């Protein structure tokens, strides 16, 4: 393998969080971002072609190695960990925040037709949701948005990777 590509692979592997092209460019001083992106794309392709146990994924604005989703049963056996479940109520709340951010709690309540306090609190605890500011209306209610961790957990490159609500509606019809 070409040395630059090998370095990039090692960096992504060694990083604790998804590694961005910018960060790699910082380390490989003077390297063009376009070339780094290209090498990353090649690596993504290499792992896909191989159909092995690990994949290189574009996630949360960076790249990260992850195990193949097909093999989750086996990895779970290894980790013997409780699955990190998100309840349906929390998922609904999360979906509203993801699509409507920045959004105030009153709107979340209205969309769901129930008080979202409990679900919201759980999402804040799990760091899937964060406070992004306050709305400039009387009472200055808190505005909520999703976090980088939300992108990491749901395997999303960025928010634009979410299907649009219209696409989802068409799916139903």
């Amino acid at each position: 393998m070409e040395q630059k590509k090998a370095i990039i692979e090692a960096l992504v592997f060694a990083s604790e969080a998804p590694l961005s092209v910018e960060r790699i460019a910082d380390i490989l001083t003077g390297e063009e971002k376009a070339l780094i992106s290209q090498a990353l794309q090649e690596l993504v392709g290499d792992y896909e072609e191989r159909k092995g146990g690990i994949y290189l994924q574009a996630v949360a604005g960076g790249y990260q190695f992850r195990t193949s989703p097909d093999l989750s049963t086996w990895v779970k056996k290894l980790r013997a960990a409780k699955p990190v479940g998100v309840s349906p109520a929390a998922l609904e709340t999360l979906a509203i925040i993801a699509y409507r951010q920045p959004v105030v709690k009153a709107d979340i309540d209205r969309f769901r037709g129930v008080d979202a306090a409990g679900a919201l609190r759980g999402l804040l605890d799990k760091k899937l949701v964060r406070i992004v500011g306050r709305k400039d209306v009387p009472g200055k209610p808190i505005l909520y948005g999703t976090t980088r961790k939300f992108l990491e957990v749901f395997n999303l490159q960025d928010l634009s990777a979410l299907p649009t609500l219209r696409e989802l509606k068409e799916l139903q019809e």
Partner: protein
Amino acid sequence: MAYEIKLDIFEGPLDLLLYLIKKNEIDIYDIPIALITRQYLEYIEMLRSLNLDLAGEFLVLAATLLHIKSRLLLPVEEDPSTQDEEDPRAELVRQLLDYQAFKEAALELDRRPVLERDVFTRLCPVAEPNDPEDPEVFVEMDVFDLVRAFQQIFTRLDKADMIEIEAEEMSLADRINEIMDRLMERKHLTFTELIGARTDRRWILYTFLALLELMKLRMIKAYQSESYGAIRLFLAVE
């Protein structure tokens, strides 16, 4: 009871309503309110007869349905001016469509390869554990950690010491910080310079309150060379 529904499967009244619409194969844009209201009330009655806790929101929607039903029962007037009046069901339909979209979005999220459920990352440390910390790069922190820390302190204090901190005070602290920043750069400023070109009353008021607070703390000194002249502000201590 005619229904064979698990009791805890509904996330709320809209979810229940959506279920009834699907079950009856009804067009969401043309809901037969009488039928749906009857089934909705029957379901709620069943929950009550089982002494289950019913969230208040379920009753609110029951009232809404009954209200819509009564409005639909009113005779349609011939008067053309009432022709433009919206279908009493319209608002509910909008709400249901939104809810349906978000419910689908939630399911879509759940279908993704979720970290620590479907996919896993490397856990084994790669390098030696004594890496130097870089004071320029921070772990992303959440404001809620901060509030929780603050709240924890308060639970340790006497109730008498407990003072609610309002958003108002926060923006005051903001102004105080900005004023101190600018004074440290410029050594002295006039009140007019501080206000700048902004005209919103709230902002001017906070600037003023911040100055009063700073003077009370004796962090700044204010001088006026003549009456109605420019107010000059200095740091009290260099």
